């Protein structure tokens, strides 16, 4: 008799497909029984879910993300589940607002109690000083509606948390920027959020749609075309005919259906990674120095300390010197407002007002014309972006909008623009104030950074792991912490930051590394400053360096073709944008450029 194959016996034993032969054959039945008993052993070993309860932070994080479905929720407000949902949501909010003194990180391990950032604001608001009350009132809305319950409990008006803040100095700067920066837009059939995204990208400002007056911003389609006009005018042209307007409040450009926005958008809080920096007190005193340079220097140093200067700044509000009070108030207002990132690069100036006529629908042709007419230099992210990519009908001088349609991004440097895929984790280090995020996430990051800076090895390890799992959102707080903590803690923050960047494959575009950290001799510097013109397209980096007579050693294989659109670009800039996005780097060994992995270059180039 021919026995079936083992799989058939297995199928029979595991109940997938009964076999007549196995049922009738004693030998096969024994084998099947053995397989069945093995199945039982596996089931018993693995069976059952886990009794592990969800950690509290999960509810807080879930509460921050309102559960949304594709269709509207059923209208059953009095159902048991609906009531329970309401109770749970309130309790989650309650936990957010009344953490009971201790903050728990996502692993459920209790960590050091952290002072609630609202405590100080509420105390200041209840205090006798009108100036302090005004500052606290300006800062409270930054916590959004999530603070309302807490305010009610303290006997304060919950509307304080939802009030539209008075326009401040930063808002005036934003209005100026909107009135001076020009934009070109050519969008067909786009939604309001899509149009505003272009404004965000072009301005670096944050735009928020007031959902109370515009409940379905994605529903309406907008076709909008303007050419080289100031942003403020473009916004009015787009919004006016739709009975909408924009208003700048608290560092944010609100788009609203009414005169003023009804809400401030989702609650956000700054990540406070530094506490009571020891030098802050002396710097705060220097705000009243007779020497203007010293005053300016102290103000900018205090700004860099972030929340490390907060306590000293509040204390300075009691100073007899009006100059000190004024500057401290300005810095506190700045701390309590998310700062826009609106740095402009010299190369962007070259692009403004340029006319691109008939460059064709391919990326390479478009950039070729743009480079010729503006003198700007473009390099495609090697191996990831090719010149034959369709970019549609290029918008005149709106580089970012054109690239965005092809799912690309422009990464600006002082003298070159790297064209990379959208979503590539390319970050910038430039610090423009504390990071703002959801309040629970902010407190979680604070707790983790504090754990890493503690002297307890167990807490350090827990915090390290927590920061790794937080990913790129931990980069800026770690960066801030590594600037001001004591050397050992700062080193741990730098190590965690480096590990996260490696783990996420991210590139910190404006962070010096490799040759930039080397003490270069004049002839070495001249080699990197050499201007490369007339670079043939499609050569590999090695061949390109050969072509320009630059001695080099490729310690890693980089066979992808290089596409640069430039009249003249420094060798150092070209090397930087061609190597670093790919996890590589370069340094100089005598008169030779060495290209290697970023890790090996870090090891070769001492800090």
């Amino acid at each position: 008799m021919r026995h079936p194959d083992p799989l058939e016996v297995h199928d029979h034993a595991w109940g997938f497909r009964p076999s007549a032969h196995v049922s009738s054959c004693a030998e096969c039945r024994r084998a099947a029984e053995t397989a069945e008993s093995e199945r039982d052993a596996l089931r018993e070993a693995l069976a059952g879910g886990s009794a592990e309860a969800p950690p509290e932070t999960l509810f807080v994080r879930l509460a921050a993300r309102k559960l949304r479905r594709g269709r509207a929720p059923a209208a059953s407000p009095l159902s048991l589940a609906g009531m329970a949902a309401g109770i749970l949501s309130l309790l989650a909010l309650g936990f957010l607002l009344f953490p009971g003194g201790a903050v728990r990180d996502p692993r459920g391990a209790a960590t050091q109690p952290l002072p609630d950032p609202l405590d100080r604001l509420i105390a200041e608001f209840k205090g006798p000083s009108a100036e302090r009350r005004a500052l606290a009132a300006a800062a409270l809305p930054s916590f959004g509606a999530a603070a309302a319950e807490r305010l009610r409990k303290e006997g304060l008006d919950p509307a304080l948390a939802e009030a539209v803040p008075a326009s401040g100095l930063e808002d005036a700067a934003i209005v100026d920027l909107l009135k001076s920066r020009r934009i070109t837009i050519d969008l067909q059939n786009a939604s309001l959020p899509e149009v505003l995204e272009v404004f965000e990208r072009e301005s670096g400002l944050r735009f928020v749609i007031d959902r109370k007056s515009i409940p379905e911003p994605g529903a309406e389609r907008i076709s909008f075309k303007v050419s080289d006009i100031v942003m403020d005018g473009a916004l009015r042209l787009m919004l006016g005919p739709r009975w909408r307007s924009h208003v700048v409040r608290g560092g944010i450009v609100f788009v609203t259906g009414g005169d003023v926005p009804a809400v401030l958008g989702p609650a956000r809080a700054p990540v406070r990674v530094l506490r009571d920096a020891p030098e802050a007190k002396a710097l705060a005193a220097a705000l009243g120095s007779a020497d203007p340079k010293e005053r300016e220097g102290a103000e900018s140093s205090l700004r860099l300390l972030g929340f490390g200067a907060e306590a000293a700044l509040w204390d300075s509000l009691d100073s007899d010197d009006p100059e000190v009070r004024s500057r401290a108030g300005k810095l506190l207002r700045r701390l309590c407002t998310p700062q826009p990132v609106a740095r402009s690069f010299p190369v962007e100036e070259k692009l403004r007002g340029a006319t691109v006529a008939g460059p064709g629908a391919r990326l390479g042709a478009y950039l070729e014309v743009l480079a010729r007419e503006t003198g700007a230099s473009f390099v495609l992210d090697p191996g990831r972006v090719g010149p034959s990519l369709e970019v549609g009908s290029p918008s005149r001088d709106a580089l970012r909008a054109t690239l965005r349609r092809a799912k690309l991004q422009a990464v600006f440097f002082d003298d070159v623009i790297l064209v990379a895929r959208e979503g590539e984790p390319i970050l910038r280090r430039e610090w423009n104030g504390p990071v703002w995020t959801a309040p629970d996430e902010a407190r979680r990051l604070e707790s983790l950074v504090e754990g890493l800076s503690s002297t307890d090895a167990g807490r350090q390890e827990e915090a390290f792991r927590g920061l790794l799992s937080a990913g790129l959102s931990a980069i800026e707080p770690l960066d801030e912490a590594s600037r001001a903590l004591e050397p050992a803690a700062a080193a741990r923050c730098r190590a965690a930051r480096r590990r996260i960047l490696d783990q996420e494959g991210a590139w910190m575009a404006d962070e010096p590394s490799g040759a930039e950290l080397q003490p270069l001799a004049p002839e070495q510097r001249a080699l990197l400053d050499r201007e490369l013109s007339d670079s043939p397209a499609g050569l590999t980096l090695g061949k390109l360096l050969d072509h320009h007579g630059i001695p080099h050693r490729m310690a890693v294989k980089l066979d992808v073709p290089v596409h640069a659109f430039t009249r003249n670009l420094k060798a150092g800039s070209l090397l930087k944008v061609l190597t670093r996005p790919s996890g590589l780097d370069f340094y100089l060994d005598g008169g030779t450029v060495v290209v290697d992995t970023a890790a090996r270059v870090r090891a070769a180039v001492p800090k």
Partner: protein
Amino acid sequence: MNPEAARSTLPMELLADAPDEVLLRAGDAAALARKYYGPVYGLVRRLLRDPADARDAAQETFLRAVAHLKEFQPGRSFRNWLFAIAANHARDLLRRRRQLPLDPATGESLPELTLPDARLLREEDRERLLAAVDRLPFDLKVAVALHFQQELSYPEIGETLGISVNAVRIRLYRALGALRKELS
């Protein structure tokens, strides 16, 4: 108000039995998390081994589910959809950390395996057995965990992992062969 005290008065028995559809309609992410956190944690704990990683991954699974709820197709099992998110997240995590063991036999071809002549997987060897399961290649381990730990049927595993029922069958078969080899 002490949230811990208040939380103890929750009508949990009402929520535990509420159908997923009701909870989804009510937009009650917290109740869904209470209902499924245990199974999801159990799955990622098996896949990632490390309890701390598993806690993070289980949380991330719920946050991702909430963020992508529009993609959830009504009629599909919400639990299995969560398992799919959890398994994908665990795979990404291991791959990113380069901890994902390369499985040389990733195809679905039938492996060489003789009939069992003795029971090699014994209950008393539970620890050894679990350790052997931990060492399985990811694709086999996830099928084993979904079938034996979460008690999903072959078609449900297929739907969760986006593979055919036959592929599930062969993965479980290969997993058994690998376990026998490991424990013999």
